[in-house]
């Protein structure tokens, strides 16, 4: 299992834990990660206006680079994953977009259309397998009630992300079971934390994130897990005692890889 691993800007700065625990866990699980040389930002957010082309080119470059080697872009940041998967879908299915991109980029070899963008959770489920993962756990989270927080970017739009049922997802709950924990189901697990609106009005993010944490705690959660650095930021801003971690940190701990 060899992947073109795209960490993204935030995993080099504010979300180093998300990246570090992924890398050591992937090695243990037999996944080979090839980080492209000189990678740049994914674009940050997918622009929904159909006439916005230029700000999707950075994602196009990452996808075309993977086309030349592994054919699989592995991501973990929810935002990178969302942008890359949607731009890859446009390259495959939006003729007007692909035509304009190719006119500008003039790639030596045309894009094959075969690159897959996958999230680390999908790789754990579909390629490592949650059963195999469970068999490798040495420090299980036995008795811990863990609430998966999906947020908005991982699952939607469901037809393009195609990661799980966008309204009744199970992938993170099955991951929690694999590491020995007890998943907590709560209503707001796939509602937005406030996202980028924290730059527009921090009170919006505080309200949205506060409601999510309150809901998870009401349902008995000891811990929460996320894949998104912005969800992490918004949820942590609501108070000192949120108990939210990157899912990769719990993975590394369960595999006995976490340094004390």
């Amino acid at each position, binding site marked *: 299992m060899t992947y073109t691993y795209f960490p993204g800007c935030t995993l080099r700065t504010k979300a180093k834990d998300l990246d570090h625990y992924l890398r050591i866990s992937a090695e243990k699980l037999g996944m080979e990660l090839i980080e492209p040389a000189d990678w740049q930002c994914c674009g*940050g957010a997918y622009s*929904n206006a159909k006439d916005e082309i230029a700000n999707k080119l950075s994602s196009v470059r990452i996808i075309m680079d993977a086309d030349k080697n592994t054919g699989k872009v592995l991501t973990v940041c929810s935002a990178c994953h969302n942008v890359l998967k949607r731009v890859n879908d446009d390259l495959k299915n939006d003729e007007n977009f692909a035509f304009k991109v190719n006119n500008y980029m003039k790639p030596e070899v045309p894009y094959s259309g075969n690159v897959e963008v996958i999230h680390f959770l999908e790789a754990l489920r579909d390629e490592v397998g949650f059963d195999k993962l469970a068999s490798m756990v040495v420090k299980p989270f036995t008795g811990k009630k863990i609430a998966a927080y999906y947020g908005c970017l991982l699952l939607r739009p469901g037809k393009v992300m195609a990661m799980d049922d966008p309204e009744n997802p199970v992938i993170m709950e099955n991951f929690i079971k694999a590491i020995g924990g007890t998943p907590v189901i709560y209503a707001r697990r796939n509602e*937005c934390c406030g996202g980028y*609106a924290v*730059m527009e009005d921090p009170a*919006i993010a505080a309200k*949205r994130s506060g409601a999510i944490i309150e809901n998870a705690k009401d349902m008995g959660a000891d811990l929460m897990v996320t894949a998104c*650095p912005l969800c992490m930021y918004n949820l942590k801003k609501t108070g000192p005692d949120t108990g939210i971690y990157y899912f990769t940190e719990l993975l590394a701990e369960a595999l006995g890889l976490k340094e004390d």
Partner: protein
Amino acid sequence: MADKEQIIRISGVNPLKCMKCGKCTATCPNYDEMEYHPHQFVYMVEHGEIDKLMASESVYKCLTCFACVERCPRGVEPAKLIEAIRTEAVRRQGCNRLKADDIPARIDDDMPGQALMMATRKYTR
């Protein structure tokens, strides 16, 4: 000024598909911050009231979380319509919602670069 056809073209949304059930507004997590709610965006675009929407603060309150897109029983995709109107609003000269000079006051040591990149994409051109 943006006209109705331009908004429909760049959003890819057909407001005539709407059956006015209100589910988009009912499911919107930021509903309480808006003067015009998602279902009103759809209705007002259909009736050509674009200028009113472009001038409203509501256009900047959408989180682009796609809850309305996923849950619309008619596949109308209101969030794409709202973003098209916002995009047209910030494309006008001098109308960036997020100004470079305002950014230092809005960030702190913990804020991920992702927040700044996303906000720049969504509030500026």
